[in-house]
């Protein structure tokens, strides 16, 4: 799996919470310009961390339940899950190097 998986309200639990490896979830919407900026960065990271960290995308327009459950009120928000729990919340388009620091931290 080298591309972020599109998950929805229904599949979120199985895919993300049930995963054995850490999972980075990109909450986004089509009308959000910074979301379009961060998407290719997340795609690159998905390739780079393949097999070590899972990557998923949640379209908040279509999946309000999971966005509400995690209190998402800004997009893009990246939520990094470990052992089924949100560990780090990253709001806004941030530099790649900063994202990598959080990802590396989740692997220790």
């Amino acid at each position: 799996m080298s591309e972020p998986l599109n998950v929805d309200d229904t599949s979120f639990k199985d895919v993300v919470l049930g995963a054995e490896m850490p999972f980075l979830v990109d909450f986004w919407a089509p009308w959000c310009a910074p979301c379009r900026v961060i998407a290719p960065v997340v795609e690159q990271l998905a390739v780079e961390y393949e097999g070590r960290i899972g990557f998923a995308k949640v379209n908040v327009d279509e999946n309000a339940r999971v966005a509400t459950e995690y209190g998402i009120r800004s997009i893009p928000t990246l939520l990094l899950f470990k052992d089924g729990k949100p560990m780090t919340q990253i709001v806004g388009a941030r530099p790649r190097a900063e994202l990598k620091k959080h990802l590396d931290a989740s692997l220790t």
Partner: protein
Amino acid sequence: MDNAYQLLIVGGGPAGLSAGLYAARSRLHAVLLERAMLGGQIMNAELVENYPGFPQGISGAELGSLMEQQAQKYGLEMVMAEVEGIALSGDGKIVSTGEGSYHAKAVIIAGGSEHSKLGVPGEEDFTGRGVSYCAMCDGAFFSEQAIAVVGGGNVALNDALFLTRFASKVVIIHRRDQLRATRILQERAFAENKIAFLWDTVVESIKGDTQVRELGLRNVKTGEESGLEVSGVFIAVGLSPNTGYLSGLLALSPQGFILVNDRMETEVPGIFAAGDVRAGSARQVASAVGDGATAAISAERFLSSA
């Protein structure tokens, strides 16, 4: 030498992209570094109505993307990397980034600014959970809810007007008794039923549980304290320059903006500044592109005389 250029441009907003366009057309060996979002701050503006040439206005995201395409068309190299420091080395400059080092004879700093924070309790904790700095990104989460906008400038009023599409009520909280925003925006805001104003008022705290519930307010004239129940607060209280990494290298204003002359030259030969990041900027897209062009022309002159 790896990563060696004639000109390095820090920042991919309107100032940096204009400088890059000029540099590329001058066939300088140039690279532009952007840390997060090519296009810069305007990418978050719903509609830019004061940039000449677009009588119907243009979305900030579209304008930013057009500027990027135009620089790209002439071959400007653009790299996503965050600059962490600039050091002088002989007659060149070494620019260190999160993704390795670059060498350049000349540097244009067009790193822009970012939204200032209020610096009150709760602001950091609730960021992304009701505290927002981007109405365009987050407005839709507040459908039929009461929200507040803090500030009295153009960004604050544009945000408030945009947010009336979603929110049931928008309260503009401003520390003075009059607005800084341009007249036409004031007229629109005063005419909008959903917008109310709290004058002479500052936010002292942001409270809530899993999300924002209430703002603690204080009237700066009477000292009276009060609470305002809202589920979101959009903060638009001005901009701080991205110059933390430059202290000790360049002369900065007390607020941290880079001091330049009218050719956009800093006190260090071969280092220029353009756009929001320089002291005295009008902080408009129109002035930023002018700065970028001026800085690129000055840099080219510097390179050909060096």
